[in-house]
């Protein structure tokens, strides 16, 4: 299954791009509306882009009233990404979303700024949400974590149904002209090519300790990139930054992935999932 990475596509302004996905994931929704961070919000580096969007979103109430019905009208399979600043906030949004049959699953963005990423508190958030909804819960983890496998185990124990790996890692770019940070808030999340080896490691390590399904993401540009995430243990693949340069990426990557699967003797993604864990061939 090919999804978009949360925050990297607005199905309402680009419905045809969303329609090429197997499933659309919303930008993270928080309890209160957020205008997001002041501009400049994006910067480019040779190895990836930085963003400091700051979870701009209409807030859960407006989202349910306006955006969700519009999204539902598009007839997409739909995941909603949920954010917050405490376990209670996450759980409250999950409880509200539980009533919407159009929403297939919830992704918990456990790497929000200001939300502690320690295994404990990620697990505490998942546990609170688990009590608030029967929908499948995908726990999205950050690579800024010495023991991501430990976090994976903890959120699994707390009731997560899947893992979304990985969110951005903190980066900074200095403006060549002013020698000040390009982003107004100085640091931002690094996404794109630089994340690919980091994402592969995260997926590989989490697959070792957990059999939960995994949405792998980070720097996917080609079908081969998607294939490698599957090989490392992902069951699905999400595309983020690449959508900005190439809105046709979902269809292109799907086609390239199929070629790559066949070249390696597989018919489906499921068959290739986790093959990098097999003992080396003689």
């Amino acid at each position: 299954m090919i999804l978009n990475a949360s925050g990297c596509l607005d199905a309402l302004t680009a419905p045809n791009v969303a329609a090429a996905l197997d499933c659309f994931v919303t930008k993270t929704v928080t309890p209160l509306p957020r205008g997001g961070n002041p501009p400049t919000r994006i910067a480019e580096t040779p190895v990836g882009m930085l963003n400091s969007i700051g979870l701009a979103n209409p807030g859960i109430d407006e989202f349910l009233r306006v955006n969700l019905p519009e999204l539902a009208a598009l007839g997409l399979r739909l995941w909603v990404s949920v954010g917050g600043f405490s376990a209670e906030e996450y759980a409250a949004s999950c409880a509200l979303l539980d009533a919407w049959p159009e929403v297939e699953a919830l992704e918990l963005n456990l790497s929000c700024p200001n939300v502690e990423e320690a295994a404990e508190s990620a697990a505490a958030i998942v546990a609170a949400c688990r009590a608030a909804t029967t929908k499948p819960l995908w726990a999205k983890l950050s690579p800024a974590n010495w023991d991501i496998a430990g976090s994976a185990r903890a959120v699994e124990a707390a009731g997560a149904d899947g893992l979304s790996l990985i969110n951005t890692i903190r980066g900074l770019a200095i403006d060549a002209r002013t020698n000040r940070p390009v982003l107004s808030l100085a640091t931002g999340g690094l996404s794109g090519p630089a994340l690919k080896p980091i994402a592969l490691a995260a997926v590989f390590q989490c697959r070792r300790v957990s059999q939960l399904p995994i949405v792998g993401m980070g720097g996917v540009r080609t079908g081969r990139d998607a294939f490698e995430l599957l090989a490392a243990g992902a069951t699905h693949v999400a595309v983020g930054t690449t959508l900005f340069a190439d809105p046709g990426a979902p269809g292109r990557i799907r086609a390239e992935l199929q070629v790559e699967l066949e070249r390696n003797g597989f018919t489906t993604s499921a068959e290739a999932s986790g093959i990098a864990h097999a003992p080396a061939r003689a």
Partner: protein
Amino acid sequence: MTPPPRRERVTVVANEQIGPYTLLRTTRGEVDPGVPGQFFMLEAPGRILPRPMSLCLVPTGELAFLIDPIGPGTQAICALQPGESLQVLGPLGNGFRLDVEQPLLVGGGIGIAPLPFTSQALARRNGGTPPPAVLGFRSAHHAEAAALVPNAEVCIEPTYVTALIPAGLDVLACGPEPMLEAVRAQCPGSQLAWEAPMACGYGACYGCAVEIDGELKRLCIEGPVLAA
């Protein structure tokens, strides 16, 4: 709802120097040139993100972009040679409204980029007579680009272009932020084409947010042309 963004690989036909700027002419293929003031995302070879560029001219069967090579992305685009190809996505955003009574084009520096196309479109609505234009540049070298805009009065710093704007005309302006702020103050009701760093150009990234009516909104969706 915006029409679906269309992306196509086009081939460089010519790479011409105009003062410090590059006029990059490409094949048009199936690309719709859109409305003046709309923009395209141009692939910047070797870079992660594409770069937003106004359409400058629409020679028969071609697209032409006027580009100031100020950083890695624009330099990579300006280095493209005839025969090389690049992806273009567009047209994107909202262009100028052309149904105005007494148009005056106002441009500053590389901000004149969309004005040649705008002038042509307005001329077509007006029996072939191009609208008047006032253009400001940093130097005589930069001002060479003024040749692209017919019927233009040109000034060079320290004279500012706002000094050349007569009252009572319908201003369509593009230029650096301080110029646009000055035009906004001087000419209520004008149409201003703004800039912001953009990652996607089609509403996906929320990177281009600027304050519009007191709220942070996506310039690529609400603009780049906004009413003063």
